[in-house]
């Protein structure tokens, strides 16, 4: 089950905690992977640790020409693109009354607009080959909201609406479009939280612990697989029971 031999995948944000785990998991199932992010050095390190079947294409998700180049170079490096994992994402938290236009725009640009642009750029090849898997990493916050994260929650909710629309457009061509919504996962993004904040969060998590990047990656592997061909337009919540939706 979930054999990805012969499949190719592009993972954005592969230099981060969750993206790195996703790239490893897809690679372990047999896929050839292209790792993207802005820090070329971190990407090269991951590539070395993966060994064969790994490529690096650094790119900025807030730069339209760079996104088109990423799509082209990833397809060229691997010969085709079967699986796109839109995982790159940032936060710029602030209560709304104090949120600056720049904070709002930056988060929307990287998390939502960049994701749409990249997905659009890779659709053509998937349509031709009658196979594709688009998996976007949204967040529990995109469904429940979170004080201080109006920008982030809007972008993550946007990904869900976008994915449902693309899923309907592309289903007849063998392309599925889904989201994975992590709860709180132990990564550099959440390392920044204070102990008090962590305690507050755990009080709301029935599983009583943070999740691991590998637990998110497992959901991505499933959605990327042939076995998940009939799953589209869905959001898979992986959150230790923090929200049941």
């Amino acid at each position: 089950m979930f054999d990805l031999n012969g499949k190719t995948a592009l993972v954005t944000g592969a230099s981060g905690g969750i993206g790195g785990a996703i790239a490893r998991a897809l690679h372990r199932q047999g896929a050839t992977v292209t790792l993207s992010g802005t820090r070329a050095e971190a990407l090269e390190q991951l590539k070395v640790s993966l060994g064969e079947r790994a490529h690096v294409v650094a790119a900025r998700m807030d730069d339209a020409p760079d996104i088109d180049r990423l799509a082209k170079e990833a397809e060229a490096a691997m010969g085709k693109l079967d699986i796109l994992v839109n995982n790159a994402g940032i936060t710029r938290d602030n209560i709304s009354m104090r949120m600056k236009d720049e904070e709002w725009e930056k988060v929307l640009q990287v998390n939502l607009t960049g994701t749409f642009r990249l997905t659009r750029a890779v659709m053509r090849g998937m349509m031709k080959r009658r196979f594709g898997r688009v998996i976007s990493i949204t967040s529990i916050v995109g469904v429940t909201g979170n004080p201080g994260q109006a920008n982030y929650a809007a972008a993550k909710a946007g990904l869900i609406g976008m994915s449902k629309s693309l899923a309907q457009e592309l289903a007849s061509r063998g392309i599925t479009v889904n989201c994975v919504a992590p709860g709180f996962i132990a990564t550099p993004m959440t390392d920044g939280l204070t102990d008090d904040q962590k305690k507050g969060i755990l009080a709301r998590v029935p599983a009583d612990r943070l999740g691991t990047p590998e637990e998110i990656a497992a959901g991505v592997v499933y959605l990327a697989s042939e076995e998940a061909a009939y799953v589209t337009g869905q959001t898979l919540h992986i959150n230790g029971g923090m929200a049941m939706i």
Partner: protein
Amino acid sequence: MSDIAERVKKIVVEHLGVEAAQVKEDAKFIDDLGADSLDTVELVMAFEEEFAIEIPDDAAEKIQTVGDAIGFIKSNAKP
């Protein structure tokens, strides 16, 4: 170059699974040949490949009939 017309018609027949006799020059892809909007995108992609040309989005939007496609390709394909 009626050859172009033949090649265009062949692509339309194969892609939309319609009878060759239906593929007249004034036949509309969507209204007459049962294409959906994604089919029209794919037809344009197939024309681009067959004739090694680029059909920009604004031109693609104007290609609504078999004749439109033949006309565009005739005036843009390399001889």
